[in-house]
């Protein structure tokens, strides 16, 4: 294991993030605030309480996921797509590093940013509604797991994409709609059949539900199922990436 390389790649990627720090922070703060103004205050005040808490508190886990999923995918995919696009990837390919160093560096940096964003959203939310986290360790662990998994997924996207549009299409056309439909703003138990059953095919449902359980102790779906599925997703991503590196697909001609 080439730890010096891991460190070099990680710091390089973080520095790249740092250069765009202002937008990176401002966007989630602004969108979270808007959601709270619109959903939390304007609509939420007319909603009955869900799961024992206020509507404002109810939507926090979903709101966090909304940003974390799209940011994780966007950052990780861009991080590896950029050197492929500019050609600077030659250096990584000619260096004494393998899939482990590359992932720890690129995905590690992207996941770090996602976790920082999650904390910023949490802080912003706290300004609008009071809430307490029931299982803080589970919440932290689950958030980290989700951030890493979706950064891995973004990394695959960045390896596969052959144009900037493709990088944007997946988060915008797939992940964000699924997050909206995944119980961010409502409990899936509120849905009539067959919509409830159909919704269970949406993988994001399990993430929202799992995080909500960690926050408030109640969930639509058993936490073991949520955590298990997320772990399985992460494992699948790692296997896919290991295969990509072994075969050199899209990396080595």
């Amino acid at each position, binding site marked *: 294991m*080439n730890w010096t390389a891991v*460190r070099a790649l990680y710091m390089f990627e973080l520095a790249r993030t740092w250069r765009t720090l202002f937008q990176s922070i401002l966007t989630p703060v602004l969108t979270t605030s808007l959601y709270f103004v619109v959903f939390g205050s304007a609509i939420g005040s007319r909603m009955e309480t869900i799961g024992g808490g206020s509507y404002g508190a109810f939507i926090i886990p979903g709101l966090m996921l909304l940003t974390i999923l799209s940011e994780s995918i966007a950052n990780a995919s861009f991080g590896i797509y950029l050197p492929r696009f*500019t*050609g600077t990837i030659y250096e990584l390919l000619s260096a004494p590093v393998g899939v482990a160093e590359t992932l720890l560096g690129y995905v590690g940096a992207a996941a770090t940013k996602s976790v920082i964003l999650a904390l910023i959203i949490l802080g912003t939310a706290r300004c609008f509604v009071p809430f307490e986290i029931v299982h803080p360790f589970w919440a932290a662990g689950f958030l980290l797991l989700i951030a890493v998994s979706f950064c891995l997924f973004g990394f695959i996207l960045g390896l596969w994409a052959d144009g900037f549009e493709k990088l944007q299409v997946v988060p915008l056309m797939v992940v964000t709609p699924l997050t909206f439909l995944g119980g961010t703003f409502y409990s899936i138990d509120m849905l009539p059949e067959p919509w409830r059953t159909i919704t269970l095919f949406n993988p994001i449902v399990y993430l929202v539900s799992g995080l909500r359980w960690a926050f408030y102790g109640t969930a639509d779906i058993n936490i073991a199922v949520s955590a298990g599925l997320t772990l399985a997703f992460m494992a699948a991503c790692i296997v896919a990436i290991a295969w990509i590196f072994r075969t050199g697909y899209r990396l080595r001609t």
Partner: protein
Amino acid sequence: MVALMPPILVLSGLSKTYAGGHVALDSVDLEIRRGEIFALLGPNGAGKTTLIGAVCGLVRPTGGTITVDGVDAIREPRQVRARIGLVPQELSTDMFEHVAHTVGFSRGLFGKRRDDAVVERVLRSLSLWDKRDAKIMELSGGMKRRVLIAKALAHEPDILFLDEPTAGVDVELRRDMWKLIGALRDSGVTIILTTHYIEEAEEMADRIGVIDKGRIILVEEKQTLLAKLGRTEARFTLAAPMTALPADLADWPLALEDDGGTLRYTITAAETETRGLAALVRRLDALGVDYRTLDARRSSLEDIFVDLVEKGA
């Protein structure tokens, strides 16, 4: 003496067929000697970059082996890559990075502990020290090329690949670069470079290889190559045209051109002992052959190269 040591890099049967079916390397056998400067020449598309890419891990060979000091580069890529530096043909840089920072990054990527003294030495040797805090996008093309060289040298490699290092570099800088490459060789680095400037190979290389259509068609000590293939050519513009060569000149490497108006003499370096130009001039005088002008020149590596590639075609 250098030749007696085992080669540092051995390619045997190295082949590459690209996905589209194009054969870019056709069973290449090549040995690079420790500490030499090896110039790889060849026309566009000959396979030079592909060959370098195969050794450096950018291209997956479809056949053959690559060994560096006995270590298989395909099976043990880490061990091998840590010793190799690569300056690519394309100017690909991280535009927003700062010069010293990007060089330090390269050092870390190759597994070497941070060492600002090494980075400083490398930057100074490339006249980049004044630009250490500049963003790469603010640099000229020639400076960017030097940044790429600095990155390749940051981990103090034993083997350095330079893919057209002086493309787009001005004359003065090119001379500086030759000096730098010479200094690197003196410090023990083995250098493999490609170039389209034959004078560059003639100036720097210890040995020269010529590749065409994915095949190595020649590998030779530069001096031997020049001596063996280097020709002297002379043209005598005759005062009175000849219809045929006089019998007395039959043994000489001569030919009539321009309807007998020009006498052309071509000789290889090996033959000059007995049939040198000076001897020919005396002979012509003795025979009373009068000429108005004499124009002589020694062929360069460039002629040899053009000859070889045309013969191959």
